[in-house]
C-alpha cells in the first residue's frame, strides 16, 4: 500500500503514514476547520494498514501540542482501529510536555480505555 505524508500547517499536524517502515506519526497542532473530513483519508489508510498490511513492527507516535474536541474523538477512533486491527509487534507512544498536566491526563484516559495497546507516556 502507498505511504501518505501530510505537511504541518498552522492548524493541522504533520502526518506520516509509512507502511514500509511501520511508522505512524502525528505531530503539531490539530484543529482543522473540517476536522472529520481532514482525518477521513487518514482513517481509510489506517483501516487498510491494520487489515493485514502492517509491517513486522509498527510504531505509532502522537506528538500533538494542541487539539480541539473533534480531534479528541478522532484519536479515540484511531486507537479503536488499532485495537481491533491486525498487527504483529506494536509500540504506541504518547508524547507530552511534562510541565502540562493536561497531556498526562489525556494519556491516562486513552491508556485506561485501551489497556491492550500498552501506550507509553513519553515526556519532551
Amino acid at each position, binding site marked *: 500500500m502507498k505511504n501518505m505524508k501530510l505537511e504541518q500547517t498552522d492548524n493541522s499536524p504533520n502526518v506520516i503514514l509509512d507502511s514500509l517502515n511501520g511508522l505512524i506519526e502525528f505531530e503539531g497542532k490539530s*484543529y482543522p*476547520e473540517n476536522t472529520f473530513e481532514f482525518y477521513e483519508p487518514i482513517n481509510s489508510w489506517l483501516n487498510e494498514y491494520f487489515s493485514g498490511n502492517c509491517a513486522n513492527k509498527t510504531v505509532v507516535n502522537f506528538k500533538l501540542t494542541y487539539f*480541539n*474536541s473533534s480531534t*479528541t*474523538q478522532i484519536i479515540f477512533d484511531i486507537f479503536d482501529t488499532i485495537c481491533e486491527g491486525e498487527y504483529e509487534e506494536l509500540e504506541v507512544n504518547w508524547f507530552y510536555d511534562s510541565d*502540562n*498536566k*493536561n497531556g498526562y491526563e489525556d494519556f491516562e*484516559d486513552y491508556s485506561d480505555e485501551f489497556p491492550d495497546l500498552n501506550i507509553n507516556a513519553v515526556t519532551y
Partner: protein
Amino acid sequence: MARNIENLNIFVKVDDGDVYNFSGKINEQSIIQSAKDVEEILKFNNANATKLQDVYELTVEMMQNMLNYSVDTRKIENNKRESTGTFRVTYISSDRIYILESSNFIESKDKELIEEKVKILEGLDDKELRKFARKKMRASKDNHEKGAGLGFIMMARKTLKPIDIVFENIKNNVKEFKLKLVV
C-alpha cells in the same frame, strides 16, 4: 433593539486595556490568527504550560463553535465557512485568571439543546467529567456520530467556575448566545 451582527468583533484585553483588537469575520484564518495572538499574550504574561494550553484550546473551541453553529454562517471558497461573532479574552492580573467570552447568533431551537448539554455536566467533578467524556467518545464511535458534546465537556474540565450561558432574544427564531468561561 436588535444588534447589528456586522458590528460584532473579536478582541483580547488585559484588565481594562485592550491589547489586541481584531475586527472582521470569523473564519479559519482569523481563528488561527486569534489563537496565535492569545498564545503570545499568555507567554508574555508568563502563563504556565497548562494554563497556556487551556486558554489556547478554549479559544479555538469557542471560535469554532461560533463558526459551526451560528445562524449567519455561510460557505465561502474551498468548503470553508465564515461567520460573525464576538470573542473576548480578559486577563485579570491581580487574580491571574483569564475570562473567555463569546457571543453569536443561533437559531432559537438550539437553545434547549445547548442548555441540556451544559446542565448534564453541572456538579460533575474532574474525574466524573473524564469518565463521561470517554463514555461519549465510545458512544460516538459506535453510533458513527461526530463527538457531539465533547466541546462542552472540555470546557467544563478547564473552567474554574461553572459554564455560564445566557440567551437573549434578537428576533423571531434568532437568539444571541453568550458563553463565559473563567480559566
